[in-house]
């Protein structure tokens, strides 16, 4: 975290704002990786994710899939057009989330994410958020029902925003899913 002493002696947190040319650089890198996917693995190898504690949470399903309510949480940066876009000017990412309405999302969706090439996902968002396929499984009786509300994050959250992501946003989303009586959550990345 970058901190700076203010004139009054207090310590303020300085945003790690990306200059405009850095944002353009990220978009160009994402395009290059889109054209040449192995490059993505090379770049990803240089990025260190947060390490989860050895104790892994565990909740067995406890009932057949055919009666389960299913929701999706995606970090692909998808959201409704009327919602504020994720902040792409902060080098540590944006830890906030957007509620996605499955009934209307395809009418007005947009993707805000500079760190991957989402041109294919814009043509068919099912490749990051497979709502149409889940609806088919619901009709076929493989799952009980598809939730109305799903949740969108942007990936690439790091540094000083990680704590807010894990301790605030993720907890809020988990509580909303609980309140909605969701039994199974599928997570999809970018």
């Amino acid at each position, binding site marked *: 975290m970058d901190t700076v002493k203010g004139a009054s002696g207090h310590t303020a947190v300085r945003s790690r704002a990306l200059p405009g040319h850095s944002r353009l650089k990220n978009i160009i890198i994402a395009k290059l990786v889109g054209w040449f996917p192995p490059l*993505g693995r090379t770049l990803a190898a240089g990025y260190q994710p947060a*390490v989860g504690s050895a104790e892994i*949470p565990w*909740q067995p399903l406890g009932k057949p899939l055919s009666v389960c309510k299913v929701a999706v949480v995606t970090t692909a940066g998808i959201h409704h057009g009327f919602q504020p876009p994720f902040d792409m000017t902060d080098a540590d990412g944006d830890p906030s989330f957007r509620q996605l309405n499955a009934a209307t999302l395809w009418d007005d969706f947009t993707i805000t994410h500079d760190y991957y090439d989402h041109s294919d996902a814009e043509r*068919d968002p099912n*490749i990051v958020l497979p709502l149409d396929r889940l609806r088919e499984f619901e009709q076929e009786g493989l799952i009980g029902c598809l939730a109305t509300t799903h949740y969108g994050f942007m990936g690439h959250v790091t540094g000083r925003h990680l704590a807010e992501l894990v301790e605030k946003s993720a907890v809020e*989303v*988990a509580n909303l*899913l609980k309140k909605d009586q969701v039994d199974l*959550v599928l997570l999809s990345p970018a």
Partner: protein
Amino acid sequence: MGLIQRVIEELGITTVGVTIVRDYTEKVKPPRSVSLRWPFGHPFGEPFHPSQQRAVLQEMFRAVETIDRAGTIVDLPFRWKREKYPDR
């Protein structure tokens, strides 16, 4: 993504994730994952390829029903653009 998954599972909801960067997932340690060596931005495959998208989801459901040890990552055998997927 795995960190969010862990929080949701901790609050008592079953979760399964799809990963295209297995190394990250090994470090983050979410409860259940299926892994694919596919390009970024394509966790469920290619646009307008419903049978491929369905195949990944079916493997996620299978993982939920069969994984019995927290932190398990199932490597899916699907090669990028070189598989035939059954029609519905």
